[in-house]
């Protein structure tokens, strides 16, 4: 694994906008998409160090769902609302299909990768990984910027279309929803809808605040039609806490990601995995903050809110370092502590690998890079190549 400095295409912004990748630059003018460099991997690194461990981690996560469902103390510790426990168990027993997830991994070229966290419910960064990164490679091969035979760990687009075909949605309309006001969320949802339509599914979009409810707790769209299947890019724990949340117990079977993902999208999963697989080479030691064993992490560790997102409220605690604390609104629900595994350092650039799983299989990668210790929503997205 190494980092290559490259000359960005002169027209990359226009290219991004042409395909609907509108959030390529942040509001303060800093690039989000950054093709002034890329990361290069060998095929062996991709297959042995990243792809196979991703499959292994996913398998461990699926085992963790069984493990947590068998222990009410853990469901309570993960702050999963009690009124949904049975619904979650039923969804898992039924094996409601899941679409996607992203493992954030620590890797700088030396195995084994270490799991930072699993974004199992509302991962984003998908369109840029699946589509724009792929288009960049095509253009860069053609222009000679990268080797003509350079490959990429990225079959996300094909896998997404294939995954939708296997959801058994048939002739029902699949509704897509996300919150108002986030361009990034909207692009992600529109992309997934595009993939669903390519799989032959009839799809419709509405904002999450436009969802209606009937007297008997069915969800409706803006034409007062009952929502039969719903893909939501909106955290399960937010839905559960909001005023229509009570109706989820009835309608959970219709929602993607499935409700059992509440167990995996919680940072408490990190402590659960460490309890199930102590000293596993792919894991970092992690404990619930109120667990006396958390003291074994010593003076330096990372503190993560159970339900945080985008790096918000993550804090690196430790003597000898300046306190690094990302601001944010999370943490009321409690914290986990995870052993510190500093991001690899490529001349001051700190990448984190986002390894995607689609319909239960590893299928691609996106890299976010920051010049700081915690990867937040300001991290830049860099493309990658495979060359031997």
């Amino acid at each position: 694994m190494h980092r290559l400095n490259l000359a960005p295409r002169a027209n990359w912004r226009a290219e991004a906008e042409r395909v609907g990748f509108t959030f390529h630059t942040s509001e303060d003018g800093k690039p989000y998409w950054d093709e002034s460099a890329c990361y290069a991997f060998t095929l062996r690194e991709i297959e042995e160090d990243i792809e196979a461990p991703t499959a292994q981690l996913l398998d461990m996560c699926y085992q963790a769902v069984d493990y947590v469902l068998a222990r009410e103390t853990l469901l309570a510790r993960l702050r999963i609302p009690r009124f949904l426990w049975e619904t979650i168990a039923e969804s898992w027993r039924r094996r409601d299909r899941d679409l996607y997830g992203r493992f954030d991994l620590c890797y700088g070229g030396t195995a084994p990768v270490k799991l930072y966290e699993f974004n199992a419910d509302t991962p984003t960064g998908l369109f840029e990984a699946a589509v724009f990164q792929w288009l960049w490679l095509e253009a860069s091969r053609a222009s000679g910027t990268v080797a003509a035979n350079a490959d990429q760990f990225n079959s996300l687009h094909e896998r997404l279309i294939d995954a939708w075909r296997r959801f058994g949605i048939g002739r029902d309309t699949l509704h897509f929803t996300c919150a108002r006001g986030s361009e990034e969320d909207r692009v992600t949802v529109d992309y997934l809808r595009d993939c669903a339509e390519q799989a032959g599914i009839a799809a419709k979009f509405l904002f999450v605040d436009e969802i209606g409810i009937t007297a008997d707790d069915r969800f409706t769209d803006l034409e007062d039609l009952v929502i039969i299947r719903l893909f939501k890019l909106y955290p399960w724990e937010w839905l559960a806490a909001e005023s229509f949340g009570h109706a989820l117990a009835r309608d959970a079977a219709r929602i993607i990601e499935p409700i059992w993902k509440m167990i995996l999208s919680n940072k408490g999963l990190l402590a659960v995995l460490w309890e199930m697989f102590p000293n596993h080479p792919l894991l970092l030691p992690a404990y619930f903050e109120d667990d006396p064993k958390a003291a074994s992490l010593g003076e330096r560790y990372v503190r993560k809110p159970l339900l945080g997102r985008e790096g918000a409220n993550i804090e690196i605690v430790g003597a000898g370092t300046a306190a690094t604390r990302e601001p944010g609104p999370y943490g009321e629900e409690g914290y986990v502590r995870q052993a510190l595994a500093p991001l690899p350092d490529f001349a001051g650039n700190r990448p984190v690998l986002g390894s995607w799983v689609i319909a239960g299989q590893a299928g691609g990668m996106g890299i976010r890079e920051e010049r700081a210790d915690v990867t937040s929503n300001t991290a830049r997205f860099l493309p990658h190549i495979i060359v031997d």
Partner: protein
Amino acid sequence: MKRSTAITLLGAGVAAWAGFTYFSDDSVSAAAYEDVQQCAADGRPREACERAFAQANEEHQKSAPHYARREDCEAEFGSGACNTLPGAPGGSAGSFFVPAMAGFLLANALNSGYAAQPLYRPCSDANDPRCRGSSFSGGTAGGSGGRWFFTSTGERVATGGGTTTVGRSAFTGHGSVATLSRGGFGARAASMGGGRS
């Protein structure tokens, strides 16, 4: 090769799909049973049959056809077939008459997301003075001795196992429904600005 071979995007506003009307037979493969025993005898796991029965009964409490007067209900379903439903929708508790649930319908597809639905036996006894000859949604039971049943949306199905085909609305209700309110989701995002990772 570790990457997609080609990427095509349909692009925004793929209005061609709107409506999707060229699938005129908007149908679902299903099976209808009179009770848990009949369902189990058809080779389904008893537990699944019991769950379907319970689900259908729950739907029955919510969506059974209801009548303000007992005789109107009995005209459709026969003498003695109707009772008050405690806490019936749309009125004060106990003020409506509904037919007894006489069976249940379940979708065959696994993970269809469809809850099992209640079935009702139409009034079919020519000697029943109350019986109006089942005008319920236009179907007649004819001489089939009560083996015909109706869904709460008025679709006719035969019980006794085997696969039958019903309109999707048998599971989802008719087209549009009454939306009570909107805006019950989205408050967290509005207060925080986005929710992704």
